[in-house]
């Protein structure tokens, strides 16, 4: 079971090797003539005003939080999706019961999405 993941790790290692080689090539091969203006943060040619590590809109946090809820929902649905048709072929009544359970789960989350949209949590 775990053995089928070994090629994946091998591939990650090789891909990282390629990326690292490109990075080293970028560092070694190019000229090195830095000066204060060149290494300044780009702000359309003017001197940078203040810092970029500032506060930003709270909307982004909201999106991230709602995303976590729904992403976990989707992950919970995968095992159901894989086995659902097996349940149905074994016994349609059992399948109907499984569908009911998942239906309640989905209904609660859909209600959450509707509530969030009505409250304006996704207005930009």
């Amino acid at each position, binding site marked *: 079971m775990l053995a*089928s*993941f*070994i*090629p*994946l790790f*091998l*591939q*990650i290692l*090789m*891909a*990282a090797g*390629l*990326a690292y080689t*490109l*990075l080293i*090539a*970028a560092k070694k*091969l*190019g*000229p*090195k*003539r830095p000066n*204060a203006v*060149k*290494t*300044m*943060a*780009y*702000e*359309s040619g003017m001197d*940078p005003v203040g*810092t*970029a*590590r500032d506060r*930003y809109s709270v909307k*982004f946090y909201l*999106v*991230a939080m709602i*995303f976590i809820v*729904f*992403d976990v929902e*989707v*992950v919970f*649905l*995968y095992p159901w*999706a*894989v086995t*659902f048709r*097996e349940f*149905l072929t074994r016994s*349609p009544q059992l*399948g*109907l019961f499984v*569908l009911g359970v*998942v239906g309640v789960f*989905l209904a609660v989350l*859909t209600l959450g*999405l509707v509530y969030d949209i009505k409250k304006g949590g996704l*207005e*930009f």
Partner: protein
Amino acid sequence: MDLPLYWVALIGFAIINFFLVSASVLVYYERKVSGWIQNRPGPNRVGPWGFLQPFADVAKLIFKEDISPTASSPFIHSLAPVLMVTIAMTTAALIPFARGFVIVDTEVSALLVLALTSIAVYGVTLAGWSSNSKFSLLGGLRSSAQMISYELAMGLSVLTVVLITGSLRLVDIVEYQNGPGAWGILGWNVFRAPIAALIFIVTAFAETNRAPFDLPEAEQELVGGYHTEYSGMKFGMFFLAEYVNFFVASFVIVTLFFGGYLLPWEDALLSALPGLKDSVLLGVLQVLSLLLKAAFFAFVFIWVRWTLPRFKYQQLMTLGWKMLLPIALANVVLYALFFTFKALLGWGG
């Protein structure tokens, strides 16, 4: 596939090289196609018909100065492009290229594709944050919000496919689409679940940050977006990752919805020519059919980029959360209900 590990490594290395070259070819392809669309010749100076232009560009990028901004965090600034390239090249290894020709063949390949593409969000976000420039930060933030928003609809459209095929293994998903006899291509998932296919293609555009979803690097408002502060080959790595990503996305679209490596009417063809079964020629034909289909979707990516204007940010969020997500969710429920009624009433097999 029960091959010794050094063979797996060798094939994996070959595939990385294939995608490296294909990224260069795609850059040329995109510039030529955009040239045709805008009624101008496109690159035509370096090599015959300008074919060597992308290779000249790579050589130029490698010998450019690598500027690290004073205000940036050097380690994360270098980590971000490495992460992007690594993820793009690793996802490429999950695709089944022909029957029995897949490097990483796990029970959960479809889930791994989704997992790996969501790690790309980190690359973009870290690049935007570590540069310590306002344009980069805004590009990174926009991009992460966009990518996580569309990931949900993408996950749900893949869920529909998983519900139909009952497996998360990409090889099983491809084999399931093999329609018997004259039905041939009607077995493809695009005919079984057209809405899911459409949603997946739209979200694939958003996940790869391609137009009309290219807000993270909207040139007119954000300069270069998250890679404003990158130069030389580090910028080239983002460029490489973008092209590999959208080529891999075309491969995934084909694998999930357009029969993967299957030839059109493969069953009918095999019963007409029984000698073809299990032959090397069939494998070669399958690789070619996969490549042709993927090249077509790569063309669609380019075509859309040069045809449609960019979304506004609030249109993008409305489309993702209020349209694609509910439609994808309803689609899953619809298919579950359909299968239940089919079983209860005893239709079909």
